[in-house]
């Protein structure tokens, strides 16, 4: 199981670690039994993600994908963030071992989950915009 240098870098020096107080959107995905929990905090001003932070319990890939996902959406519009795919996260990390692909799915879902929370807080039903977010299977 081989991690790219990018994964190792984003694991050892994760970007955007921490919490955002009074975040505009917070999402959590995963569970401890599976070995991965990601929580994502977003600060959104005028439809632009001005800050993103995460807290993650999980393997190196879980932490690296969290880090990369926050990097990819920071400074972008909510619309662009909605288009974030797990594939984009994997590519930005120069690949992930097959057994770790699910971590990138978690990262995508954590972003979506935070955006759902953002829409809900705005009084907008998130489902037509963000879609249903499935919890990972145990």
């Amino acid at each position, binding site marked *: 199981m081989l991690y790219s240098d990018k994964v190792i870098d984003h694991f050892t020096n994760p970007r955007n670690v921490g919490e955002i107080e009074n975040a505009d959107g917070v999402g959590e995905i995963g569970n401890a039994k599976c*070995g991965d929990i990601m929580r994502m905090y977003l600060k959104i001003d005028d439809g632009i993600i001005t800050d993103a932070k995460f807290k993650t319990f999980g393997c190196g890939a879980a932490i690296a994908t969290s880090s990369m996902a926050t990097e990819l959406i920071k400074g972008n519009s909510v619309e662009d963030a909605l288009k974030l795919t797990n594939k984009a996260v994997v590519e930005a990390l120069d690949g992930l071992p097959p057994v770790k692909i699910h971590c990138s799915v978690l990262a995508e879902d954590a972003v979506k989950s935070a955006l759902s929370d953002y829409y809900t807080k705005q009084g907008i039903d998130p489902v037509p915009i963000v879609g249903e977010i499935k919890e990972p299977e145990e």
Partner: protein
Amino acid sequence: MKKRFIYADNAATTAVSENVLNAMLPYFRYEYGNPSSIYKLGRDNEQAVIDARNKVAKALGADPKEIFFTSCGSESDNWAIKGVAELMAAKGKKHIVTSVFEHHAVLHTTEYLQKKGYDVTYVPINEKGLIDPEDVKKAIRDDTALVTIMYANNEIGTIQPIEEIAKICKEKGVLFHTDAVQAVGHVNIDVHKQGIDLLSLSGHKIHAQKGIGVLYVRKGINIPNLIHGGGQEKGKRAGTENVPAIVGLGVAIEDATKNIDEKGKKITAIRNKIIDGILKIPYTRLNGDRDKRLPGNINISIEGIEGESILLLLDSYGICASSGSACTSGSLDPSHVLLALGLTHEVAHGSLRLSIEDDLTEDDADYIIEVVPKVVERLRSFSPLWEGIINNAV
């Protein structure tokens, strides 16, 4: 704090020792003959294999005729279990007793046999990671072909009551195999005295090359081949002998079984220091019995963080360690051994195994005791799970 390089994963594999490599080297480019060949270059190789076989036999208290070289511990386990299964099936015995926390080389073999119509009983372990011989006794039936219980566990290092189990097997007339891959070179073994019928070992755990193993089979037990072909290994294991690796294994087992007691004392002291150091971290626990344990094994669960992330961060500090067994580090399931101990999935995910040897210095130990808490603190600082643990405790 100056960065060090500390290899603390000797249970996964070991470096080939200088002694072993020096013994092996001539057999690559100069003494390369086939031991089955009649000319001197071949005969010298045959003699080298004989000498190595004698060394292995001596280290185990066995007869050289009972020593069969294989390609690894896994092959030895497979051969022993499938071999006895096939042998005894002919006598209508198709039941095997093993334990829940064996290495996958055993467990996946018994699972395979279950699919082929064999019946397998998995004896439990207690919360200290030990098997109760009484449980083995109760599990044995009239149609039991084999009991296979590991000598020492690869993850939590607990040493099992092998002699008691062997005695029970003898009384019941059942063959007894032990996977001693983790035990050889660390505890004193005498197969004849201890009543062991079959024993597996692997070279790369004791500073020989990867890809060489041994199956000891007590005289009189004639299991069928796993690998058929040429007349090597008295016709019981085909394939041109891996002479350099065999020669190296001979040297390695001789070195490893020298001064086991003295080495063991030294390692145990330093191990205990590390255990005590790491256990100062809140929400940690030692897995496996503290005393009935391999001298070099440390296995600690650390709540709130995940094992692989600990390892990667330790690696950035120059410490090589493991979480569960190396072979399954690609897998997502928490260790079956830790689950068998009764740990929850959450806690089992966050385990750290350090397996040390007598080359580990006091300074190394201090470094480990300094680095591990740092790494743990860092990972807990952004773990949503840790947050919950702390909040629940308040």
